[in-house]
């Protein structure tokens, strides 16, 4: 039975969560620009506020004040509803993500299931945004997003299932409690890697920023958006990135439990979770500075030929270990073995031929000079 007090509590929680996430988004924007700047031999924003801290605020204000234009032939209602369809699922999953013991708006028994159910929904918003914009680039981007997000949903679900099998619960807080002695990244490295990769693809960050690829489809589904509606997409992207990072921190890096155990005060627990989450976010930004963008067919083959089989392997390993009662370290051992296969293949099929080719060219140039 839902009581008035509960409604009030959830309402206040959502309000706090929404504002908290706004601040997080602003911090992420600032962090990304600064961090990328440093990696690229620049300084990033410096002008607005100390260390450019208010740059993101200024950008947000600018976006809100801009005129909101839509293309003439756009399907107006859908066009304006689509940003919300993208943002709301990314936001609503925060309902059940705990920052510390008992620090979630609603600590659902089926928390992981809740996340899976809602995170899929953002596809609808992207496809509708692409379709309703009445632009070919947007349509192309919408198709790409549908293909990409549907494919990468599967490895995410399977890796989460692996965690559920090992932890024996779908409650995120309990999963964290189960990692008191050893974080799951040590037990399930395979699942952790696949989850993070698929997660990055799910939120469309480099090297998987295919559906809004600036140099190809010029922003994809977002190409016709401006002002506040564009800002909502932007917000959704960062909130979703933060979700993936937070889930990685909670489900694989031990959340507030590891490495300091249970006697941590709640505030320190929150700080620990945030520190881990931001570390994962930084790793995601780092990837962005390092890698180009995959092509859509390469993305699909990575998803279907590598990540999905690997995620199934992770599930099978976990299930077998549970069923036959093998020692816990066998999880790690099997995961590492399975993980090594694609790594070796990648080096053999991709990197080494290119290196050999370059060496061959260099040798030929030397020979020509000698002649």
């Amino acid at each position, binding site marked *: 039975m839902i009581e008035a007090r509960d409604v009030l509590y959830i309402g206040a929680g959502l309000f706090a969560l929404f504002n908290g996430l706004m601040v997080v988004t602003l911090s992420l924007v600032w962090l990304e620009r600064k961090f*990328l700047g440093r*990696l*690229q*031999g*620049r300084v990033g924003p410096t002008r607005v506020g100390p260390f450019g801290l208010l740059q993101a605020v200024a950008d947000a204000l600018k976006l809100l004040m801009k005129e909101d234009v839509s293309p003439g032939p756009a399907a107006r209602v859908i066009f304006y509803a689509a940003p919300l369809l993208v943002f709301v699922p990314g936001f609503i999953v925060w309902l059940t993500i705990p920052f510390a013991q008992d620090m979630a708006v609603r600590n659902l028994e089926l928390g992981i299931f809740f996340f899976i159910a809602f995170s899929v929904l953002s596809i609808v918003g992207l496809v509708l945004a692409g379709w309703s914009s009445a632009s*070919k*680039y947007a349509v*192309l981007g919408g*198709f*790409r997003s549908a293909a990409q997000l549907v494919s990468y949903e599967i490895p995410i679900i399977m890796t989460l299932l692996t965690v559920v099998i090992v932890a024996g619960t779908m409650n995120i807080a309990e999963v964290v409690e189960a990692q008191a002695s050893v974080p799951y990244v040590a037990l399930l490295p395979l699942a952790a890697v696949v989850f993070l990769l698929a997660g990055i693809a799910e939120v469309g960050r*480099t*090297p998987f*920023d*295919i559906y809004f*690829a*600036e*140099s*190809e*489809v*010029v922003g994809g589904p977002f190409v016709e958006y401006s002002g506040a509606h564009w800002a909502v997409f932007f917000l959704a992207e960062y909130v979703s990135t933060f979700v993936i990072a937070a889930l990685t921190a909670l489900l694989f890096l031990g959340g507030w439990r590891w490495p300091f155990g249970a006697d941590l005060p709640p505030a320190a627990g929150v700080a620990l979770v945030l520190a881990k989450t931001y570390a994962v976010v930084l790793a995601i930004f780092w990837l*962005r*500075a*390092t*890698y*180009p*963008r*995959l*092509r*859509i*067919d*390469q993305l699909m083959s990575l998803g279907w030929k590598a990540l999905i089989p690997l995620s199934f392997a992770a599930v099978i390993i976990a299930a077998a270990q549970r069923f036959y009662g093998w020692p816990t370290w066998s999880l790690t051992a099997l995961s590492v073995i399975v993980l090594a296969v694609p790594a070796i293949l*990648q080096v053999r099929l*991709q*990197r080494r031929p*290119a*290196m050999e*080719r*370059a060496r*061959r*060219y260099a040798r*030929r*140039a*030397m020979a*020509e*000079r000698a002649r």
Partner: protein
Amino acid sequence: MSAEPQTDTVDMMLNMGPQHPATHGVFRMVLSIDGERIMGVRPHIGYLHRGSEKLSEHESYGQVITLFDRLDYVSNLNNELVFVRAAEELMGVEAPERAQYIRTILCELNRVASHLLFIGTYALDVGAMTPVMYTFRERERVQNLFEHVTGARMMHNYFRIGGLKEDVPGDFAERVLSVVRRLRAGVEETDRLLTFNEVYLARTRGVGVINAEDAISCGLTGPCLRGSGVAYDVRKAYPYEVYERLEFDVPVGEFGDCWDRYWVRLRECYESLRMVEQALEQTPEGPVMAPGRRIARPPKGEVYAHAENPRGDIGVFLVSDGTDKPYRVKVRPPSFCNLVGLERMMEGAYVADAVAILGSLDIVLGEVDR
């Protein structure tokens, strides 16, 4: 009659450019696509047509140099050189040795700057955002040096028929050496980040392949031709200026894919830096301008001169009717000729490849449209 249900589908027409972030200016491609596959491509050019060739007929020889600056606006000095050489040949003038050395040094530095621009923007085309920062930082060093020497960062107007506008500043040699040293480190940094990057390899290897035979019959030159394995370089085949006295390799690819074209340009950066160092050592003292009349008035006749531009074999066909203005100036623009290969490279490519392939041709629209 087939029993299968027939779906009536048409290819989607996708207009890419002239205002598209990856067309490097105002190039326009009309792609007909089936899903993500490219079924056909129709290039459209002319958005930057300024009538440079016609304009040249109304300018005196000295003034035409400024128009050549604006053809390939990222390798201005290389363009100036080819016109200046054509006019010199027509007049039977030869620039003093010192001027030739300085022109070579500046042209090679310009080549590095141009290739750096290519590497950066090409990485951006395939989605990597960091190399462009590195390469622009390095390119800036060259631009600063040019500003120091010629007074302008881009439209230099520094070469003259028979030599140079003026001698280089006194600290030229040491500044060039320090720039070369830093450039080499900068190119290496980008090289380490990009060349064997897994995703970069996946995006460029086997993409936009054109074999040597096709490359020749399409009239490709420069890195696009050498990427296909043909070691044709005007600097080696028909040496001009002081290239005969410099030791350098001509890097060539093998398969003629985007990675090979990238690799050739990358190696050319290193080779150019080597050349600059050698040329600097050999530079003699002396005048930088051949003695003669101040206003060029070549005798009646015609001449074809060509040189290795960063984009390929740039040629100038110059006809003089004996006045102080050329009767006809015809340019063979390498970017324009390289575009001929576009259609062949695009066969069976994906939409994302269209960007990668166009980028690997490294066109400059100022030169394509003239």
